[in-house]
């Protein structure tokens, strides 16, 4: 556990400090906010994919549930933003609990079922029949609580907590147990690991993280449609970033987000006409030539990546 604290100090604190100070020198604060959000999402995905091997293709479902948990609390309960953030977390956790049976599936079946579940949640929330509750397809406006600076800070706080969680998983016995489950659930069981419980914990933690990210996203952008909160590209970006950096480490997903999302924006701003093409090619090359992520370059040479 000592090592965990050290790694957190070495990896997370500089990152957090940089992100806290960045708005002073760089004014596209929303881009920085999106960096924070993807850092959170990538680490949340890391908790379930990196440590248990389940690829939640519908991860955006939790994100959207969090965004709408936040929005509903503000619209109907007149909740303060922080209380609404708690509601965002609870909404995603509740969805996580409902979807726990999906953990019985494996491989592509799990990924597809999870995608279908996220779609189903989206279709319910965006249904005009629920217009009085969710505003259906007509989108929500939360201008009453709009507070970009405060929500930026809260997002940073969530990132700090998420990184701490992953640093802990990386070094605590639970993290090791989860990795064992990922490698071989049967063997893990024979090593005394409570496989179902371990998976469920990782699943719910990861749902909670996405829900909080969704909540703070809703707070920060304040006007959005269901299509925005349930945009499948949130799932895909989080997966690609995590994979690119290297799952099951603290540093991997961070590098993944900083490099790839950074590149994404640089391409988008400099050569918008070939945006999609370049990004597609990049992803293909990544999977073919670096399937275990950047971190594997170090681990293959026997170095430990925090």
């Amino acid at each position, binding site marked *: 556990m000592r090592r965990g604290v050290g790694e957190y100090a070495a990896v997370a604190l500089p990152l957090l400090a940089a992100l806290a100070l960045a708005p002073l020198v760089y004014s596209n604060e929303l881009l920085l906010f999106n960096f924070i959000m993807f850092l959170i999402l990538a680490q949340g995905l890391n908790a379930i994919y990196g440590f248990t091997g389940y690829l939640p293709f519908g991860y955006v479902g939790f994100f959207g549930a969090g965004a709408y948990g936040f929005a509903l609390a503000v619209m109907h309960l007149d909740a303060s933003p922080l209380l609404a953030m708690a509601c965002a977390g609870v909404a995603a956790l509740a969805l996580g609990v409902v979807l726990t049976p999906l953990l019985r599936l494996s491989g592509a079946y799990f*990924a597809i079922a999870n995608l279908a579940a996220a*779609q189903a949640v989206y279709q319910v929330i965006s249904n005009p*029949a629920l217009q009085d509750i969710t505003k259906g397809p007509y989108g929500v406006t939360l201008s009453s609580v709009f507070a970009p600076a405060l929500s930026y800070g809260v997002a940073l706080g969530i990132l700090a907590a998420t990184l701490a969680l992953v640093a802990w998983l990386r070094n605590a016995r639970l993290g090791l147990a989860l990795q064992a489950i990922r490698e071989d659930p049967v063997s893990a069981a024979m090593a005394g690991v409570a496989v179902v419980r371990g998976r469920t914990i990782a699943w719910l933690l990861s749902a909670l993280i996405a829900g909080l990210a969704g909540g703070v996203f809703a707070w920060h952008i304040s006007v959005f449609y269901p299509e925005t909160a349930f945009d499948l590209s949130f799932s*895909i970006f989080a997966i690609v970033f995590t994979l690119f950096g290297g799952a099951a480490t603290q540093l991997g997903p961070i590098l993944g987000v900083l490099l790839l999302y950074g590149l994404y924006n640089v391409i988008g701003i400099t050569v918008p006409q070939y945006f*999609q093409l370049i*990004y*597609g090619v*990049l992803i293909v090359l990544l*999977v073919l030539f670096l399937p275990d992520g950047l971190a594997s370059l170090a681990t293959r040479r026997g170095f430990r990546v925090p």
Partner: protein
Amino acid sequence: MLAHAILSGLVFGCYFTLVGLGLNLIFGVMRIVNLAHGDVVMLGAFAAFWLFALVGLHPLMSSVIVLAAFALLGLPVYYLVVPRLLAARDSEMLSIILFFGVQQIIEAIATIAFGTSERSIPGRVLGRGPLHLLGQALPVAWVVSAAVSLLAVALVYLYLYRSRVGTLTRAVMVNRDEALASGIDVNRVSALAFAIGVALAGLAGVFSPFMLGSATPAMGGDVNLAAFAVIVIGSLGDPRGTMLGGLIYGVALMLMQTYMSAWANLLPNLLLIAVLLVRPTGLLGRQVRRA
């Protein structure tokens, strides 16, 4: 209304069997998820559109050309990408990401080449007026598309169960490692299955302007969601399962449209999840214990 919904559902379901068929074959043989499947369908649609618009080629003729051309197109893609992918540790998961990238590439190129406007082929090309079937009026184009789909399913079935390569293909589906150990040229069998899968997606694309109203470079995502529902409900890897999944999907969708239209898209997803939870390998799947 009920009779019409069920009949349209069956006809529509036949077409959606074809939409899922290629995806299923590729997953069954290689255990990879071709997320670019919907975009190959889109390419098929544009191929048929341009063949019709430029040289006036009948879609039934185009479908033969598309089948051959897309199979030939599939081979180099297979050799460029798949063997390398399969060598990775978690290829089943990685495939989703890889083919997401491929999908982005296809969509980007299609947008540059074809623009973003909707394209289609007039329905009368496949026959004029509604066709009366069991007292219900159905668009002729639908019935033709369904018939072609059934033919394609039958051919795939014959390929798998009546040809030597097909037998080998099924062996690879059952257990890739065993097949490799017993001297089957797994790589060649897979390449063939991949090419056929891509060709079937292209074929589905040829008829998509008739079944889906029109085609745009962005249509792939929705096609994928439908195809996933179809093949998972049926059972991944088995063409008969795909048929069953397609019919269930079609009928369920039409019934929802009839009685709760605003919720129509929710049903396939709920069906998919329910089927997976009750029978994790799909309705026709073998009961295998996957530890």
